[in-house]
């Protein structure tokens, strides 16, 4: 693979556009994560106070009462039929690129980007994404997110990647060939579904408690588990008064709601692999994504593999950049000829 174009003219990046978080890994060593929120000041006063026309990431989340806040990527895709969400994705990508591209870079710098999307993304969604990226990068390659993860982890043969994000859970079986639809599956049972479930269970149990989905999400990220756990106690306002409530059981039930669909899909995909390779795949299951960090989840899935004769599930401990790193790895390995073929 030649690299005819020098890095001073081209910057290769991997981008993981996630429902909850998006990340970028660039060949110049920059790696950044941004929460996938974009907000526009809701009125003149808010614009005056904030001093900006658009806020992205944690900043947007922090100032959400003053903003028309968008979380533009639903299930890892641009929400359908909304110009505002397209604009939000554009802003999100712009922010990621601003972070990765050093200030004062040549205006002629060409960015070659590999972008990971959920495995079963419709072609129309991919085209929308390509259109949004067109003004900001010179050339785009869109790949399925779990494929990018596997590529980055050097696990391209006899591997199953389970990537549990906020919007989707993506499965991909790598057999040393480019994965087809047969090898991939996308479920909506993912982090957001757990959040909604947990929110509902808490409201059901503590009817007077004021709980927002953002609070629920933060609790889940700190305390999520399947199986056994120490009590999970959090502070919430009840009729305005700070009160401690025990959410151990709701947390368990919400997190364990993921188990059955994950187990079923994992076993089904393994069962479809040619029999002589099934054992190798069972012993090479990689669990990644933010919700892959739910305590005990890897062990439960490993236990489920016992139904097929046992296996091993490895959990990626730092999943934030694993998708964008994989994208960067692909971007670096693709030589200039490929990028020319993909330029608009």
């Amino acid at each position, binding site marked *: *693979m030649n690299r005819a174009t020098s890095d001073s003219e081209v910057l290769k990046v991997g981008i993981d556009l996630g429902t909850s978080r998006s990340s970028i*890994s660039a060949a110049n060593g920059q790696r950044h994560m941004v929460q996938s929120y974009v907000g526009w000041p809701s009125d003149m006063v808010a614009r005056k106070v904030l001093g900006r026309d658009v806020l992205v990431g944690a900043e947007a989340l922090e100032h959400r009462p003053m903003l028309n806040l968008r979380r533009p990527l639903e299930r890892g895709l641009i929400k359908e039929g909304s110009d505002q969400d397209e604009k939000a994705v554009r802003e999100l990508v712009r922010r990621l690129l601003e972070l990765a591209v050093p200030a004062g870079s040549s205006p002629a710098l060409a960015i070659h980007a590999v972008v990971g999307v959920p495995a079963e993304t419709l072609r129309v969604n991919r085209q929308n994404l390509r259109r949004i990226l067109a003004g900001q990068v010179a050339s785009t390659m869109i790949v399925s997110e779990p494929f990018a993860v596997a590529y980055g982890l050097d696990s391209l043969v006899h591997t199953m990647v389970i990537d549990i994000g906020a919007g989707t859970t993506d499965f991909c079986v790598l057999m040393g060939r*480019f994965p087809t639809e047969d090898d991939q599956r996308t479920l909506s049972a993912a982090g957001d579904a757990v959040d909604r479930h947990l929110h509902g269970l808490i409201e059901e149990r503590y009817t007077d408690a004021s709980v927002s989905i953002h609070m629920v999400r933060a609790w889940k990220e700190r305390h999520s588990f399947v199986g056994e756990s120490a009590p999970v106690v959090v502070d919430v306002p009840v009729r305005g008064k700070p009160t401690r409530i025990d959410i151990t059981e709701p947390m368990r039930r919400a997190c364990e709601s993921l188990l059955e669909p994950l187990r079923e899909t994992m076993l089904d995909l393994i069962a479809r692999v040619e029999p002589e390779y099934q054992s190798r795949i069972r012993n090479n299951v990689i669990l990644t994504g933010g919700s892959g960090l739910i305590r005990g989840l890897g062990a439960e899935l490993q236990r489920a593999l016992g139904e097929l004769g046992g296996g091993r599930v490895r959990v990626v401990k730092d999943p934030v950049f694993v998708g964008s*790193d994989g994208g960067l790895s692909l971007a670096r390995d693709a030589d200039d000829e*490929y990028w020319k073929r*993909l330029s608009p």
Partner: protein
Amino acid sequence: MPPEDRAASPPSGRSRADRRLRIDLIEAAVRENEAELGRRGPEPGANATPKRQRRRFRPWSLLLLAPIAAAAGLGYLELQRSEKATQAEPPAEAAPPEAEIRFTELPESLDLSVFPLPVRRIVLDPGHGGSASGTVAGGLTEKELALDIAVRVRELLSDRYRVAMTREADIDVELDRRSGIANRAGADLFVSIHVNWLPRNRTCGVETYYLGPTDDPELTALAERENAEAHGYSLADLRSLVDGVYGQHMQDESRALADAVQDSLFEKLRAANPELRNRGVKSAPFVVLIDAEMPAILAEVSCLSDTGEIERLRDDKHLQSIAEALDAGIRSYAVSLLQPVESPAEGEGRGNGKLRAFRGREGTVNGRGSRGSPRREHAPAPQAAGEEP
């Protein structure tokens, strides 16, 4: 190796086999992207997936199949030629040529002149197929069940109708081609057969759909699942198509067909399963129904989320019962078209003649255009959706 080190590793640090694998994978990824950009890359290398190899268009197959098409008198070869003429190159993932679609012959004893049937040709569409398995549970796949049931329905209906299927084997047929097949074959009815998965309610139910919009998130999710093979449409596209293209009259007839089939399915299948739920007739934006120029429905005849039903589906008798229920529903609708209309409708819509035969977009019975006309002739491009009344 930590991620930052991995990302920085030059490919030259890998073994030759690993580098070769990576080049093949990148080539495949680039080709997939090129296809989306409407460009056709060079011939795939050794890494081409089995599916793509299987679905590659083979021009010579047209020559082999032409006699069949000619014998069937359906004008398909014309169609293939006209389609070929409009395409610079055949699509990389072409489905099997449509000349493979064959109608059953009517029994010689049946004199059609005695039966003024407004329904003569029926296309059955076994859902999914090939790489698209549909719902899978208990070792059963939706694609196999749908095909099995469709074959049985064809057998049952063939005594009075000419019946064809969009697929007769475990092959890929793109969703948006299926109703096109029925259009070009001049079919009077289109029935897509599916097996459901009800994640929230595991009690089995039957439901029947016709094309239309829906605001129900559950139905949207179902349509999303069933449309998963339709690369190229978003749900927003479908909403536009449904709102802008689909004629109210055809929608009424599709609904009538759906009513008849649903009633029959529920009545007949409840005998085997008293807990069976009647989930009713609903509209939803299914890609497979979008382009149909005749009454078209999608029937979810069973569900693989119910463990009891999985066991029943292993039994030939149950599959036959489902087929018989579909057969009875389709016949019931066809017979209803023979009912005299008390006061003939004035405008477009119900028949102006003595039979309740439906009229299509062009005012011809069944709304068929001339056979062999390009598929999109009467269907506006997605961009134009919403402009047509």
